[in-house]
């Protein structure tokens, strides 16, 4: 079970009050977690990753265990603590703009 924390705008959009929990088959990576997230909440398609390229949107970041994972490869395994649900995978709107 993977825990995902979404920024407020995306929680509103997905109509979820808090953390999202997901079952992810296989290796837990950014790609597999986001694929599972978008499958569960299709309204989030295009809001975190570009529809066409599947690349992270420029003003979105991924954090976990006080580390910035944004520039890790999409298929790189997430830290064990995230993969086991001890720590959440955090999606953040960059601290810019607005």
């Amino acid at each position, binding site marked *: 079970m993977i825990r995902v924390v979404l920024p407020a705008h995306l929680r509103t959009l997905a109509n979820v009050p808090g953390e999202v929990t997901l079952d992810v088959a296989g290796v837990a990576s950014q790609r597999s977690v986001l694929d599972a997230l978008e499958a569960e909440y299709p309204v989030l398609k295009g809001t975190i990753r570009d529809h066409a390229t599947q690349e992270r949107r420029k*003003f979105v970041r991924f954090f976990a265990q006080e580390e910035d994972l944004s520039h890790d490869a999409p298929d790189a395994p997430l830290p064990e603590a995230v993969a086991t649900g001890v720590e959440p995978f955090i999606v953040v*709107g960059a601290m810019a703009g607005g």
Partner: protein
Amino acid sequence: MSGVRVLVGTRKGAFILTADGKRTDWKVDGPHFGGWEMYHVKGSPVDPNRLYASQSTGWFGQLIQRSDDGGETWAPVGNEFRYEGVPGTHQWYDGTPHPWEFARVWHLEPSPFDADTVFAGVEDAALFRSVDGGNEWHELPGLREHGSGPAWQPGAGGMCLHTIVPDPTDANRMYVAISAAGVFRTEDAGKTWQPVNRGLHSEGIPDEDAEVGHCVHRIAMHPSAPHVLYMQKHWDVMRSDDGADTWREVSGNLPSDFGFPIDVHAHDPETVYVVPITSDSEHYPPEGKLRVYRSRTGGNEWEPLTKGLPQRDCYVNVLRDAMAVDSLDSCGIYFGTTGGQVYVSPDAGDAWEPIVRDLPAVLSVEVQTLP
């Protein structure tokens, strides 16, 4: 008693303002989608309870929302806007080639013929259409690929297709406007397009009367006279009497012919409204006086409308999509400002009152006349 529903898009959400036909007592509902940029909200002429809204932020991109109950509830629909084929390049601000990249939807134009058909004008400039109520979007690539696309360049707000004017008497004919390319017309329901900018003159481009390259800010049509079009260009107010084949300037005695919105009285195709702005860099009214100008002669002769509008120390702007008219017997005129005011004149511009004073910066105003 009939009434009106005013749909307001702002930098930080959408608002719905409603009143009966007197248009004096208003209910303000919102913000909807608080914190998001709402570039445009517009209702279907076929089904007034069907509303479409463009919702975006720099963080999370583009969403389209649809309401089937007049804005009481909303649901997200399709948000994938993918250019057909390999989109190539247009000009960047410095004249170098720049790849076409989708940024946002500026304008949503529900079809006058079918509530499930809606057009979207986007940045970087292209026209998309949905025929299933916004669930799926497909580009009409004949516009972007008609030939002049690589020469288009962005205006200050981006290279956006911001105006979509369907001919309500002919489903095959439609006009769009792009900053900074100009006006384009289709007569085969969007398959093929031609630039229709003859008569426009623009400083700042190498050939002042080029076929494309003009920063058209807005065009407007009266439904009873679909061959008459009015245009607020970067500078100059223009008119066409032949479906955009040719344009002539009708700026006349305006204090400035720079501005953004232009609209036409609901019952008189010769009565036109603009909001003069000082200049291309001074985006506020001349002399700090917020004045709507009305021409009852289809241009050239303009009168200032000031009653109820601030006549000192006013330095707001009125953006291109932020003016609308209702179709009640006494035509109401509406506009919103970057200072967050939405004004109404229930008597065709003679006197104005603010409906609201302190919204976020207003990006768009549309009005629905309800039975």
